């Protein structure tokens, strides 16, 4: 397992939105996609701990507040496009609990709920060079595939050396998502002004520790 790595940030973004950045961590992929019982119990415990009153008070807490402010600053309305922790909270209330969606997604959910920092997982071997943030140019497509969704010029994207991989705070291109043959995962978290770097790293380590927990090794999906 490597140490968390700071991604690059394009100059115009660094100048306008100080504090915005991406931090990534490469970890071995779990052999199976199924969620072990211990991780399910962790999700259940989080569901029990998280109540309606918590969801209401969420936007007053420093970390979710920092993401709401960043959403406003980049032209997203956090009451339309929910910040990830609020989206998870609403889903928890609607579904009655955090629903298990496979080990990798569950590990990301656990880290998100525990820290408030959103993170995503990519197939590390599909990524070319370190991740970073930049503005998309015209005629670019997510993941670089001809049939992938197009980005709009000026859109803030998470990118590698080849192509944009995901819109900022959006879902990554399907071509870069972990699949059955994935051997290494690249976890990345988006940090914003007002969220200490330690918090972002904590989210990555939490996710990595869930993926590395007993019962996740040697399972068949």
């Amino acid at each position: 397992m490597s140490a968390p790595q700071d991604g690059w940030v394009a100059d115009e973004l660094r100048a306008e939105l100080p504090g915005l950045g991406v931090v990534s961590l490469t970890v071995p992929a779990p052999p199976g996609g199924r969620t072990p019982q211990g991780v399910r119990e962790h999700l259940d415990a989080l569901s029990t701990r998280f109540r309606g009153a918590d969801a209401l008070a969420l936007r007053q807490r420093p970390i979710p507040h920092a993401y709401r402010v960043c959403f406003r600053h980049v032209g997203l309305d956090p009451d339309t496009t929910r910040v990830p922790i609020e989206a998870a909270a609403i889903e928890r209330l609607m579904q009655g609990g955090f629903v298990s969606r496979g080990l990798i997604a569950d590990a990301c959910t656990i880290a998100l709920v525990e820290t408030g920092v959103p993170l995503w997982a990519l197939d590390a071997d599909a990524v070319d060079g370190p991740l970073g943030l930049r503005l998309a140019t015209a005629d670019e497509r997510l993941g670089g595939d001809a049939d992938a969704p197009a980005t709009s010029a000026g859109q803030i994207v998470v990118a590698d050396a080849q192509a944009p991989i995901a819109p900022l705070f959006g879902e990554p291109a399907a071509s870069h998502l972990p699949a059955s043959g994935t051997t290494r995962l690249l976890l990345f978290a988006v940090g914003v002004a007002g969220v200490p770097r330690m918090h972002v790293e904590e989210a990555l380590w939490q996710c990595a520790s869930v993926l590395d927990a007993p019962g996740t090794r040697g399972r068949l999906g």
Partner: protein
Amino acid sequence: MTVSALAHRLSVPGAYDERAARRTLRAQVARLERELAALAPDVSPRDGVRWSIGGEAGPRLLGLGELERIRDDLAERLHAVRETLAARAVREAEQRALLERMLRDPARHRFIRVSATDVGEPGCGVWHVRPRLGLIGMLAGWWHVKLSSGCPLARAAA
């Protein structure tokens, strides 16, 4: 500051000032967002507050005009939420005063109902001015305030 950065700023008139203006607007947006968030727990679904300000354009770098629009929309929304909460506080105060009058003199407030939500209390209780002993109490002028037992019980699905 490097020489090249300084040269860039000098070569683009207004660029430096605009960046400072955008920074100020972003700080104002952050402050308004914090003030709105502080009001969120006080707002109930019955207030019908719309939180969204719409006009999604991101994620991208916003210009001065767009940041100004967001700042203005947030300020308007904050004002609207404060007005809604203030109007509700006035309504609840009136209902609490009415409840006090009902409790002091039920006979002068016949059949009036005040619910717990009307006075800003949680629960489903209702204070209702009713005659004691039904028709006899109505004829004799024996009125009292009865507090209903609470929320209706959940019924099994048919």
